[in-house]
């Protein structure tokens, strides 16, 4: 049984009221959430301490200007918050944060997490061109029609985990047809339940923990299997992999925005990855030509080897790729295979050890000699 707080108002207003309540009662000292900036249609993550400033907050705005899990990890890398802070994160952002915590890159102490059953976000390149609220309105009206919003990221269309894992409070959004008049908060933890005390609304119990509407779930499943089939055709095999990444400009933007890629200096930017005179000689002799700068594909394969097990499929990488390579789709496919191999779900729980840190005597026997 889960405690549920039901409210007779739209989710966008309710979440702000809830956050205001948290700040005003002193339950938290600040809220980490998306906030509108002075420029029109620009949102960015902000830390809000003044309840009045919550007017500018826009927690479920359908844009991800950065994976908040990565941002939170950088803030709490050296020390945790000393006072309680509420963070509103999308499920993939929360999962990324958990993965980073496991890697000693962030500290969750004093953070209470509020997440949503997510309906996805727009690609950044598209939202950067928005000139009015039209697209945002369309997003919400699609939700109230019981549909998955149009024009969301590929990674969101195929998202396997739109339901958050381990959040203190879960706010159903995707598939909620009465989203603009009613909403409910699932209070998953004691911490969450305590925060909701004193909020106007009806507290009850619900059998269903959290569920995403069946229709949307099956739509996403269908999209996933379609994408998987398509990727088999377009990316599988060395030749197609080479072709897929051939237009890569080596800007490494995918890595820069990846929440899991936390290294301050990437192996592929280190001196070890620089072109050696000897390699130039050998390659010239062998092939008559060598692409420079070299190592375009090696970078992606190396990155996959480093982070695929923890890939949360957030889609930031595809969003920033100037060469329009379907990075997140390829990484999703590889990530899924690696994660299934170890029965591992990145971000499911802080306690679940990263497979590479666990020794099993009998493991992967099939690849042994």
């Amino acid at each position, binding site marked *: 049984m889960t405690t549920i707080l039901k409210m007779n108002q739209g989710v966008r207003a309710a979440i702000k009221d809830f956050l205001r309540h948290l700040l005003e009662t002193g339950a938290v*000292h*600040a809220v980490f959430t998306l*906030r509108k900036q*002075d*420029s029109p249609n*620009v949102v960015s*993550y*902000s*830390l*809000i*301490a*003044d309840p*009045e*400033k919550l007017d500018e907050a826009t927690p479920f705005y359908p844009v991800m*200007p*950065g994976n908040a899990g990565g*941002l939170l990890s*950088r*803030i709490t890398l*050296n020390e945790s*918050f*000393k*006072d309680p*802070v509420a963070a509103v994160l999308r499920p993939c952002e929360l999962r990324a944060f958990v993965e980073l915590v496991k890697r000693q890159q962030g*500290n969750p102490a004093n953070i209470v997490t509020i997440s949503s059953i997510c309906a996805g976000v727009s690609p*950044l*390149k598209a939202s*950067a*061109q928005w000139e009015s609220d039209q697209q945002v309105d369309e997003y919400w009206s699609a939700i109230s029609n019981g549909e998955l919003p149009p024009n969301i990221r590929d990674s969101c269309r195929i998202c396997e985990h739109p339901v958050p894992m381990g959040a203190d409070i879960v706010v159903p959004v995707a598939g909620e047809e009465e989203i603009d008049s009613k909403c409910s908060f699932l209070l998953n933890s004691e911490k969450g339940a305590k925060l909701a005390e004193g909020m106007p609304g009806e507290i009850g119990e619900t059998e269903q923990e959290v569920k995403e509407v069946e229709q949307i779930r099956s739509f996403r499943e269908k999209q996933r299997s379609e994408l998987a089939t398509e990727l088999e055709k377009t990316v599988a095999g060395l030749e197609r992999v080479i072709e897929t990444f*051939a*237009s890569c*400009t*080596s*800007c*490494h*933007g995918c890595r*820069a*925005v990846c929440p899991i890629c936390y290294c*301050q*200096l990437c192996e592929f*930017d*280190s001196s070890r990855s*620089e*072109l*050696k*005179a000897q390699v*130039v000689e050998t390659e*010239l002799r062998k*092939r008559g*030509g*060598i*692409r*420079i*700068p070299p190592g375009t594909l090696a970078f992606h394969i190396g990155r996959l080897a480093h982070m695929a097990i923890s890939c949360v499929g957030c889609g930031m990488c595809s*969003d*920033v*790729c*100037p*060469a*329009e390579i379907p990075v997140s789709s390829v990484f999703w496919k590889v990530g899924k295979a690696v994660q299934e191999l170890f029965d591992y779900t990145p971000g499911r729980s802080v306690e679940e050890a990263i497979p590479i840190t666990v020794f099993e005597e009998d493991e992967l026997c099939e690849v042994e000699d």
Partner: protein
Amino acid sequence: MKKGHLLPAQEGVSQAVAGFLKRCLEEKIFDAVVAPLDSHAGYNYVLLDDGELLDKVVAMPPVMPVQGAKAVQSLTHHGNSKKIAVVMRLCEIRAAVELSKLRQTDLENVFFIGVDCSGVIPLPDYLERARDKPKDTELMLRPLCQVCEDFSLAGNDRVTVVDLHVGTMGLGDSSALLIPSSAAGEDVLRQLGMDSKPVEEVNQWSTKVGVIRNERRKARKEALADIKKKVSGLEGLLEVFSQCIECHNCQSVCPICYCRLCFADKGTSADTADDYLQRANVAGAVRHLPEPLLFHLGRMAHMSLSCVSCGMCEDVCPVSIPVGRVVSLVSEETRGIFDYMPGRSVEEELPLARFELEELTEVEDV
């Protein structure tokens, strides 16, 4: 220009240039060549010494996926014993020269072949629309290419680092000019017996380039004035950069930003969770730190003197910030103070590396 050679180019400038390079390799004038190659996936810089691969050379690709200076850097960062001819745009050559002043390229054995540049299409537009129909004329050039004055060597005393220049403008489709621009360049033409002194064609070429340059110069003034209006004052700057998501793509593709680990990524300026909370308490709300504008101001402080206005940064910005135009504007102003032209020559010192007793007195305390 009194010297030069007219290169027949009935099969296109690329074929003509490829033929020329082939001869250079055969005559062992160079050990290898760096040039853009057409592959099924687009255009990449390739180091090659294979005559057959030369057939795939494209002298002037319609797009710049990688700034050529980065290719030169990757090849010569640790010194370079091979004699290499490099075929590139002037902005790429100039960036490679800036990098040599910053000890990131070794140009000792590098022979620069510049090519008249008609500008490039922004990479995303190119990939989206032009891949299947490269002749689509509706595609706009990069904003900075539209206002570039240094696209050709004709009548250009602002660039002196090119050894040999390929002139194509104003010549129709069937010929190209090889203009020597250094002693080494003259030497190569002499060795190959290429010295037809095509006076008339050189005139045609210079005239055409002059016409285009005048238009560009005018357009540049307008474009920079336009950007200046947008970024004037703190408010303007904040607004222009407010969309920045700090992916730092602009920095990673910038040929001048060579630091292995950028100051902005070092985390030295990172606030602790509590600092951040205190700031939020004071201001009511604080954007995720650091404020992106700081990154851009810092980057401009570091690299604007050497900015070659190639426009790579703007190409890769996922949120369409006119970052190239802003940096180019700032660069014009900072360079102006020191009368410095990035990539003009290898000998011209970086202003920051040079001490002048009497300098910038106007900003001194009196």
